[in-house]
C-alpha cells in the first residue's frame, strides 16, 4: 500500500510523440466531421422552407422556418407522424424492456444452474446471433399469416422481444458479477430462486441490463424490414417505415419532401435521449465485463 503513497509517475508506458498524437487527433477530427456532417445537413435542411431548400447553400441556414415546418408536419394528415413516433417508442421501449427481462433471466439461468444440454442450448442461442433479422422477416410473415395475425401490433412486437445477443451478454456478465456464494447465501436464508433472481441478481446485473436494453432499443427502432412486410395499416407504422413510405410519395406530392426531412430530424431525438441518459450505465457495463 505504501507504493501508492509514493509520488505517482505521471505517465505509464512510453510517452507518445507529438507527431503521432496530432496524427491521431487529425484522423479523429476527420471522422467526427464525416459522421456529423449528415446530421448537420439534416438539421439545416429542416429549418428551410421549400423554396430555400434547393436554392440556398446546403450546409448553411437560409430563413429559419423550423417551427413552421414542425407545425406543418403536425397538421399534415392529422398528425400521423406523431402517431408513428408513439408507435416506435412503444415498439422499441416496451419491446426492449421485455427483451431485456427475458435475456437476463435466460443468461442468469445459463450461468448459475447446471443442467443437461446447457451448452447445447447456449450454442443454439449463439447461433441465433448470426441470423440476420432480415432473413427471418419472411418466415415470420408466413407464420403470422397462418394465425391471421399480420397487420397487428403483435406481429411487430412479438418478434422484437427476443435478443440472442442479450442472452449471451447476460450469461457472461452473470457468471462474472454474481458470485455463487451470494446465491448460496440467499438460498440458505430461505429465498426462493425467483426472489433471488429479482432481488439479488438483477441488482448486480444492472449495467448489463442497461446495455442489453440500449442495444435492443436501437435494433427495434431501426428494424425496417419486418414492419414493411407485416404492416399495411398506416396507424400501426413505426416512424422508419412511415418516413420511407412518405419518401416514396415525393413524386406524387412534392411538399412531402419537407415532411420527410423534418420528420427524420425529429425521429432521431429519442435515440439521442436514450443514449445520453443511459450512456453512463452502458459504459460501465461494457467495462466491467471486460475487466473481470
Amino acid at each position, binding site marked *: 500500500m505504501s507504493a501508492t503513497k509514493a509520488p505517482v509517475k505521471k505517465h505509464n508506458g512510453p510517452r507518445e510523440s507529438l507527431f503521432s498524437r496530432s496524427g491521431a487527433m487529425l484522423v479523429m477530427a476527420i471522422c467526427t466531421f464525416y459522421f456529423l456532417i449528415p446530421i448537420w445537413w439534416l438539421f439545416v435542411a429542416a429549418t428551410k422552407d*421549400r*423554396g430555400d431548400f*434547393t*436554392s440556398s447553400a*446546403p450546409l448553411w441556414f437560409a430563413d429559419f422556418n423550423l417551427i413552421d415546418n414542425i407545425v406543418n408536419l403536425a397538421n399534415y394528415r392529422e398528425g400521423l407522424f406523431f402517431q408513428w413516433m408513439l408507435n416506435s417508442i412503444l415498439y422499441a421501449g416496451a419491446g426492449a424492456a421485455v427483451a431485456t427481462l427475458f435475456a437476463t433471466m435466460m443468461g442468469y439461468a445459463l450461468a448459475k444452474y447446471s443442467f443437461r444440454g446447457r451448452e447445447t442450448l447456449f450454442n443454439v442461442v449463439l447461433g441465433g446471433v448470426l441470423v440476420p433479422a432480415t432473413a427471418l422477416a*419472411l418466415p415470420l*410473415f*408466413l407464420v403470422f*399469416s*397462418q394465425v*391471421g395475425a*399480420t*397487420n397487428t401490433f403483435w406481429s411487430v412486437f412479438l418478434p422484437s422481444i427476443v435478443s440472442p445477443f442479450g442472452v449471451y451478454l447476460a450469461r457472461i456478465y452473470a457468471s462474472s458479477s454474481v458470485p455463487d456464494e451470494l446465491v448460496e447465501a440467499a438460498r440458505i436464508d430461505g429465498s426462493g430462486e425467483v426472489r433471488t433472481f429479482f432481488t439479488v441478481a438483477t441488482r448486480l446485473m444492472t449495467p448489463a441490463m442497461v446495455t442489453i436494453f440500449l442495444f435492443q432499443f436501437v435494433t427495434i427502432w431501426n428494424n425496417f424490414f419486418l414492419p*414493411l*412486410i407485416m404492416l*399495411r*395499416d*398506416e396507424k400501426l*407504422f413505426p416512424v422508419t417505415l412511415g418516413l*420511407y*413510405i412518405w419518401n*416514396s*410519395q415525393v*413524386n*406524387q*406530392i*412534392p*411538399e*412531402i*419532401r419537407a415532411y420527410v426531412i423534418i420528420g427524420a430530424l425529429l425521429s432521431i431525438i429519442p435515440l439521442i435521449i436514450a443514449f445520453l441518459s443511459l450512456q453512463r450505465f452502458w459504459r460501465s457495463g461494457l467495462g466491467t465485463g471486460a475487466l473481470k
Partner: protein
Amino acid sequence: MANRIARAGGALVLVSALALSACSTGAGTDGGTDAADACTPSDGPVTLSFTTWLPGMEDAAAIWNEQNPDIQVEVQTGPNGLGGTYNNFFNQIEAGNAPDLGQIEYDALPNFRVQDGVVNIASCEGVMDAQDEFIDWTWSQVTFGEEDSVYAIPQDTGPEALFYRADLFEAAGIDIPTTWDEYAEAAAQIREEGGYITNFSQSDINAFAGLVWQADGQWFENDGEAWDVTLDSPESLMVADYWQGLLDDDLVATLPAWTDEWNNGYNSGEVWSWVSAVWGANSITSGAPDTAGNWAVAPMPQWNEGDSAAGNWGGSSTAVLKGSEHPYEAAQFALWLNTDPEALASMNATANIYPATKTGGDLPAFSEGLDFFGGQNIYDVFAAAGAEVNPDFTWGPTMTQVYTDVADGFSGAISGSGTLTDALTDGQQKTIDAMKAAAIAVNE
C-alpha cells in the same frame, strides 16, 4: 436503400415465381381464367381492403363508402411498388391473405399475370363495357390482348412531352426542336451557351423505354405461348445510338436523377429541357422553384418530321388480387374509382393523378393555365399526347430485373465503359436467362 430493396425484391419475386410455377401448371397461359365465370355479388355487407401508395386515397374511398354502405373499402398504405409493395403482394398472395385490391403499375402487371396473382374480372358486371371510356393503350395494358380478359382497371397515365425553359431558348435565339435531329442541333448550340439541353438518367430505364415506345419500338411481345424479348430491336438500338451520340459529345448532363444535384441543375438553369411525363410538372415545380414562370411545354421531338408520336412514362392500374373473396364488389369499386369524376377529382387533388379515361383531361384541375409555366395550359399538350401513344407496347414479366440490369449497363456507358447499345444487348441476354430461370417460356 430503395435500390437495394428493389434488387432484393427482384430475387424474391424470382423465388416466388419458381414456387408458384412449380405448383400451378400452365400458369403462364391460362391461370386466372377460372375466376372469369364466377363473378357474382356476395350476400350481405362486404368490407374490402385496398393497398395503395397514393397519398390521400382515403378521401376517395370515403366518397365511395358514403354512397355504398354495404361495400365498405378500407385503405391500406405501402411504399411505392418497387419499394416493397409488390413483394408484399406476392408474399401475401402466397400466404393467402392478400388485400382484395391493389395498385399495380402497368410495367409490373405482366409479372402478376404470369404468376397468377391477379383475378380476371372480365365477367364482372360493367367491366367489359368500360373499355370505351379508357385511352386505348391503357386498356391493352390490362388485357394483354387476350380475349375476354381484363386483369385490372387502368388508373392513370404518363403521356410525355417536352418541358423547356422558354426564356433561355428565346434569349439564345434557338428554336424549339420539333424533331430529334433539331434537338441534337439545339443541344450543340446550348452547349456553346454553357448549358446542357437535358439530363440523361442512368437509373430511369422506364423513361428510356418511353422513348423507345415513341419510336414504335417494343421490348417484349407475347404470342400466347411464349415471350419474345426484343430489347435489341432496331428501334430500341436507334434510340440508344442517338443518346450515345449526345453522351459522347458531352451534350447532355449526367446528374443522378431525383437528387438535390439534379434539382439544382434545373433550378440553376444549367439544364434547359426535359422530355418527361405529365407528372413531371410537379417534379420541376418543386425542384426548380427559382425558375417559376419561365417554363413551357411542347410536344415531344419526332423521329420523322410531321409525325405526332408520343411516349409514355409511368401509370398505374387497380387490380383485384388473387384470393379475394369478393371479386364482384372489388371490381365495382375499381371501376368507380377510375371513372367517376368525383373520385378522379379527389385523386387528382391529393396525389396529382392524371386519369386514364378519355375524358380525364376534362377535370376542372386541368382547365387552367399554370403560373409556373407562364400561364400556359400545359394539360392540353399532354391530353393530345395521350391520344398519340402507340397502343401495342408490352411490358415483360420480369421488369424489376430488366431495370436493374439495363441500369447497370447505362451507368457503365455514362462512366465511359461500354455503350448504351451494349447495355441493351447485355440486358437482352440477362432477361432471357432470368425468364428461363423463372420457368417462363421464351422464344429464341
